[in-house]
């Protein structure tokens, strides 16, 4: 009954690593598991693409080249053209395409079991870390950093293309009565205008929360649900749950790998494109 004695806590894999960094650095720049995963993601995303593209593109593409072309085509036509206007494509198409490829790679690497576990097991006298699935995107710091890039890009581009006055005015919905005193019908109009302004300003900041939380909790909840179902026997202390737990865990794992990992990357990149495009052309 060794299985039932395992101290299984699915949450600890996503929280403990912050307190056990591999390298301690000042200013909170510690190198921990999430940072290593991010380096790995960047290396894989750049390496695979560069390897296939630099090999020489052919007029009659083979399988690998077709895959890269499909991804590029989707980035351009589905993600970027859906949100960005023509004059923003030159600068921001590479950004949203990078976001898509990077987040997709990050999510997919999160579903490969890698030896980064907190606990160690003895294999023939060697202390080897446990294999575990962990995604860097199941970490609020990572998704929040990506979201803040989009947030600042949105507002800097909005101010650059429209000027600050026109841009901040464009946050208000069109068709409102004029706020000037001589156009004012009643104090109620002024109160309503102030309320609308407050809501519109808040909605700009809620975008940070919604964009980062969507990716973060999707990946965290996905990993937790897989871990809970696969470890259900250990959590409940009975083997009879195994015939339910293992197939459910495998099914959820396949769902997350095939659908959710790509979908969340697609959504993040699409929303970034829509936000930046909406700031460049506010009346769109």
């Amino acid at each position, binding site marked *: 009954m060794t299985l039932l004695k395992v101290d299984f806590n699915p949450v600890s894999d996503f929280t403990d690593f912050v307190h056990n960094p591999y390298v301690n650095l000042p200013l909170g720049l510690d190198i921990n598991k999430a940072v290593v995963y991010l380096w790995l993601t960047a290396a894989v995303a750049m390496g695979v693409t560069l390897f296939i593209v630099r090999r020489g593109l052919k007029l009659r593409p083979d399988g690998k080249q077709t895959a890269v072309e499909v991804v590029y085509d989707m980035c351009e036509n589905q993600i970027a053209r*859906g949100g960005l206007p023509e004059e923003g494509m030159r600068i921001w198409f590479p950004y949203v395409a990078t976001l898509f490829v990077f987040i997709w790679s990050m999510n997919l690497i999160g579903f490969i079991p890698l030896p980064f576990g907190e606990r160690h097991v003895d294999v023939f006298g060697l202390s080897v870390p446990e294999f575990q699935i962990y995604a860097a995107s199941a970490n609020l710091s990572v998704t929040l950093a990506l979201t803040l890039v989009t947030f600042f890009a949105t507002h800097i581009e909005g101010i650059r293309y429209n000027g600050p006055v026109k841009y901040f005015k464009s946050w208000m919905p069109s068709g409102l009565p004029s706020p000037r005193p001589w156009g004012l019908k009643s104090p109620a109009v002024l109160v309503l205008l102030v309320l609308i302004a407050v809501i519109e300003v808040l909605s700009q900041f809620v975008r940070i929360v919604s964009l980062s*939380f*969507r990716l973060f909790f999707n990946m965290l909840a996905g990993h937790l649900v897989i871990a809970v179902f696969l470890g259900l026997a250990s959590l409940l202390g009975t083997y009879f749950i195994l015939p339910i737990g293992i197939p459910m865990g495998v099914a959820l794992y396949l769902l997350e790998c095939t659908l959710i990992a790509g979908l969340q990357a697609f959504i993040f990149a699409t929303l970034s494109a829509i936000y930046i495009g909406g700031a460049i052309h506010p009346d769109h």
Partner: protein
Amino acid sequence: MALDGNVHDASRALELGLATGLGAIGPGIGVGFIFGKTIEAVGRQPELRGQLQGLMWLGFALTEAIIFYALGMAFVAYAIA
């Protein structure tokens, strides 16, 4: 009736389950609506399938994110309780 055992931890566990489960009702209905309406729309105009699918996934992700607000608040309440 007096309660025995670890009432504090039990209430935290109940809170996490209840908040997540109740928060899942609305997004569940919404996601069903989005897929159903997309199927309906594709049935009416099959030539728009590509555009409708893009919109469907966008709407799906926006709706689905609502449960994560409930889950996030549930985790916060679980952590500070």
